């Protein structure tokens, strides 16, 4: 799951600290004058107090040294765990599946797990994505962290947690439960972190994702019909459709980028299409590719700038919220909306039969698909959990074939679709979404979110893309800026690795 992608205005938390707006400053003046000596000694006392508290903090160096890391492979489990024999267990679970269908699906699965194992009680703590992101770090550093947590993929979260030894490697369980064959490698790899905690996409398995998600193209059938534009079957047809729509007086692509992150998804799709192969971009994101100094990156930026310039994107897109743009699209403003599968349920509710969904059209009709996407946040087991076996059984329960059918029933896209997914009508938006997901995995066309590349790329890229859309940052400049950031981070990682290996490696 991409950084912050779910964070709408509605999900935001008030951050206002309590005001200390008592106009006490004035009353201080009326207090009778103190003798200079006491005033000075008070100052001394205050300074001493401040220093004392500072030293109090200095007594310990914060953080762990990673020695809490579990043994390789995870707990040395040798047989499929049986939670029924674990005695009375309370499993504390922190997740962020607070939206309609996702929440319902988790509640049902939790209920079933407790029915199956009456000795297990699940204590669920559900928070919004951004709430979870800001509190999880502190919770994991504590002495009694939750047993199961949902960790965001990428360097800032999952890699950092694994590096600090806060998560249990799940490789043994993966063998016992057959997770390695259940999931396509491209998906499973996104939940892997190397043993030295420096790279992700390779190494030990630290989590399992329940759901799948990718960036697709929503379309409004009525708007396309009114403009006399056929549904594009190839990427070239798609880009050709934009000027036609514009000429017909319709907004070709609805888009709102005030929240900064949406452009990363749009840009990702454009870059995927411009790339020589999905692997070209994917390898770079996973830290083993040639970087961003390539034609694909520049061409994608040029296309985005061009779309803004030609009016294929709405005027002032940088000033429109992501949720507002989706609302406008639902209200009939815009022929296409390029965004994630997570919007499907909401859009369907508002648009009914007018809504269509497709993956970004391939280069040739019915050719291999490619797009930006991945999977939901990974469900991981903390290394301090006293019941890793029960936690692993819970993960299995959340991701098995039955769970997939429960998810489909709630309109959620399972990472590994089950039988129920086959019964979804093929030409419905849901059917299109599931079918394209399966094809993307077969075609090996899934390209992870760009912000996984470095811990800070989310920030720099989302800021820079606003400049590209505005026209103040040239595509060439974006290409070199992305490359600089990539190279700097790889160099930093290499340096750290060398010093960790005593300079023997590389």
């Amino acid at each position: 799951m991409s950084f912050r992608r779910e964070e709408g205005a509605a999900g935001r938390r008030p951050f206002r600290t309590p005001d200390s707006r008592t106009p006490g400053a004035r009353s201080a003046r009326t207090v009778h004058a103190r003798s200079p000596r006491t005033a000075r000694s008070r100052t001394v006392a205050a300074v001493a107090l401040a220093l004392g508290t500072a030293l109090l903090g200095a007594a310990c160096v914060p953080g762990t040294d990673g020695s809490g890391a579990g043994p390789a492979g995870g707990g040395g489990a040798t047989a499929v765990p049986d939670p029924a024999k674990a005695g009375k267990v309370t499993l504390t679970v922190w997740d962020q599946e607070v939206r309609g269908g996702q929440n319902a699906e988790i509640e049902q699965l939790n209920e079933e797990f407790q029915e199956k194992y009456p000795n297990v009680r699940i204590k669920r703590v559900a928070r919004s994505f951004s709430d979870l992101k800001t509190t999880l770090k502190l919770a994991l550093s504590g002495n009694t962290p939750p047993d199961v947590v949902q960790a965001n993929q990428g360097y800032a979260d999952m890699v950092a947690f694994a590096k600090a030894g806060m998560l249990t490697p799940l490789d043994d369980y993966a063998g016992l439960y057959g997770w390695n064959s259940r999931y396509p490698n491209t998906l499973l790899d996104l939940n892997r972190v190397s043993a030295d905690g420096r790279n992700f996409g390779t190494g030990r398995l630290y989590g399992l994702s329940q759901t799948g998600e990718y960036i697709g193209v929503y379309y409004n059938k009525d708007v396309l019909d009114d403009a006399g534009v056929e549904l594009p079957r190839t990427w070239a047809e798609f880009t050709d459709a934009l000027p036609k729509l514009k000429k017909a007086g319709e907004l070709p692509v609805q888009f709102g980028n005030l929240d900064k992150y949406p452009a990363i998804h749009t840009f990702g799709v454009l870059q995927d299409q411009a790339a020589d192969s999905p692997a070209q971009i994917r390898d770079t994101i996973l830290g083993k590719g040639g970087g961003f100094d390539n034609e694909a990156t520049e061409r994608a930026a040029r296309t985005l700038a061009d779309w803004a310039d030609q009016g294929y994107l709405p005027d002032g897109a940088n000033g429109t919220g992501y949720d507002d743009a989706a609302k406008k699209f639902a209200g009939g403003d815009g022929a296409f909306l390029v965004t994630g599968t997570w919007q499907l349920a909401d859009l369907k509710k508002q648009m009914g039969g007018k809504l269509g969904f497709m993956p970004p059209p391939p280069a040739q009709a019915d050719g291999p698909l490619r797009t930006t996407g991945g999977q939901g946040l990974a469900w991981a087991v903390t290394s301090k959990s006293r019941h890793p076996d029960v936690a692993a059984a819970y993960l299995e329960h959340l991701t098995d074939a039955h769970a997939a059918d429960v998810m489909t029933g709630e309109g959620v896209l399972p990472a590994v679709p089950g039988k129920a997914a086959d019964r979804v009508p093929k030409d419905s938006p849901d059917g299109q979404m599931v079918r394209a997901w399966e094809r993307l995995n077969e075609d090996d066309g899934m390209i992870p979110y760009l912000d996984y590349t470095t811990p800070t790329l989310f920030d720099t890229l989302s800021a820079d893309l606003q400049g590209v859309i505005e026209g103040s940052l040239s595509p060439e400049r974006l290409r070199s800026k992305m490359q600089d950031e990539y190279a700097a981070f790889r160099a930093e990682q290499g340096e750290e690795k060398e010093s960790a290996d005593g300079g023997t490696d590389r």
Partner: protein
Amino acid sequence: MTAPPAKERARPSARAALRAYAAHHRRRAPGEPRAVGLLYVLPALVLYALFLLVPLGQTVWLSFLDWDGLTAASWAGFDNYRELATDPALRAPFAHALVLLFFYAVLPVALGLLLAAALSRFRVRGMTFFRTVLFLPQVLAMVVVGVAWRSILAPDGLLNDVLRAVGAGGLARSWLGDYTWALPAVGVVGTWVETGLCLVLFLAGAQRIPRELYEAARIDGAGAVREFLTVTLPGLRGEIAVALTLTIVAGLRNFDLIYITTSGGPGNATSVPAFEVYRRAFEVNEVGSAAAMGVALTALIFGLTVVVARLVEGRTS
């Protein structure tokens, strides 16, 4: 406040007797705080230390570390502060904050003075109503303010609709998405919020200014401007200091509004220190750098409030 207490002037002999009596019983000069006073403030002091001084000390400590919030921290010395001084990306938020101070402190105080002067000169019908309406933004949570203004400033929001309706459609723009206008747009929201506070403070202060001063000024032939400069402005000195302190603090620790409206964008055109602290600590795992920024922000706020207390309020110690 400044008039000497009447009883000090009266009956010097009685005062001397009293002083002799007091000297007999205590060796301390009268009015000097006694040690037992510390006992009275102890509960408050403990709370204050626990929830304010200790975290402050910890923040200072963290600012000298290189820490990602999870793995073992390493000593960084003054590196975080050096970066703060040299990295343009880290300095920019402070520059933005200073621009915002114009909108958060200078403009509201100026507008508040203007309104207060006008309102104290003319009787306005429904005064209570206007005062309440102007003060209302202060009562609203900043998040509500942010969400409301986000929609007002949207490309097809209220502001642009009004501009187009009056034939100034050429001025309509994507206010929060425009590199030049996003910062002033966010600033205007601050002005809207803080003006009411200033006005209410100044109105209350103006009521305490003796009518005789105005009458004297008018008899001397002072016009509205002269009257404002010689009577109202000096009379409101204390209130202006309070208003400046409050608005400066509000402007500098501005986080919620930026978080809701622009997330620091477009680009980094509206990033401010408080938002940057949050971003660095929670999003990019640079706790040391975030702490250094927090300390710098604290120092800046402290410095500015001291300046206000000295220059405007005239306090010297």
